[in-house]
């Protein structure tokens, strides 16, 4: 939850800097780079987890089935809300 403090602080900072239009492109580029860094870290932490590596072929299939079910179900359900309340 402490990530929300940084987000809130960032929003405040961004609000104060909202007139500086030349900063927007730099901020967006920095976001892309940080996504790359975090994905590299995510990969490193998965590769270092021996429990995940050893069982990946056994439980990976089950996990994938659950992922597909969960994503499909949430997209279908929220689509009705999207159609009724959000789609212009």
């Amino acid at each position, binding site marked *: *939850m*402490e*990530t*929300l403090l*940084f*987000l809130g*602080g*960032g*929003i*405040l*900072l*961004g*609000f104060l*800097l*909202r007139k500086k239009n030349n900063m927007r492109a730099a*901020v*967006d580029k920095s*976001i*892309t780079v*940080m*996504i*790359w860094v*975090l*994905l*590299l*870290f*995510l*990969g490193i*932490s*998965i*590769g*270092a987890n021996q*429990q*995940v*590596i050893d*069982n990946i072929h056994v*439980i990976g299939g*089950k*996990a*994938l*089935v*659950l*992922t597909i*079910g*969960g*994503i*499909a*179900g*949430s*997209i*279908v*359900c*929220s*689509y*009705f*809300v*999207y159609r009724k*309340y*959000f*789609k212009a």
Partner: protein
Amino acid sequence: MKGTLITLLFFVSGCLLSVYGYTPQFLVENDLSTYALYALMTLVGVSLGMDESSINILKKANLGLVLVPISIGVGSIVGSGIAYWMIAESFTEGMAVGAGFGYYSLSSIIISSTYDSILGVIALLSNISRELFSLLMAPILVKLFGKMAPIASSGATSMDTTLPVITRFSGKEYALIALFSGIVLTILVPLLIPLIL
């Protein structure tokens, strides 16, 4: 597509570095990902704060806004339950993993310590791949199912790790919806999983 491949390359590189033991020692000793996430959150905040139009969408849809995390939560839990039941596994266990909403650290800890460690690892893998899928497939989901789809796919992670890609591909006007939905679902994870199991 080029962006997706570059993103995937970073993840795969991380896996390979770690598996073959080439991870720099300072990365193993210091958990830098927390600080990287803080930096990312601040940057996303700045990006949102500079965008004055994003507040307007909150004024448009109040009931609709509340229904976003509710529909995503119900769809995720029931969808995972049905999928698991279809491969001759427990419907209840499927629902519990689905109630992780992509929050893999917390959901796998709750499931493995209160129920079963193997299902905990399954929850870890399933919810990590949900986050990964959402990060990589966001532009394709928007094209196929509309701007809400990446928020649905991201689940609880739409308030932090996947918020940047949602902001980029659904638009800044969806950032606050993603934030709201992600916060609600994150709060629900530790409440729903013990109730289901």
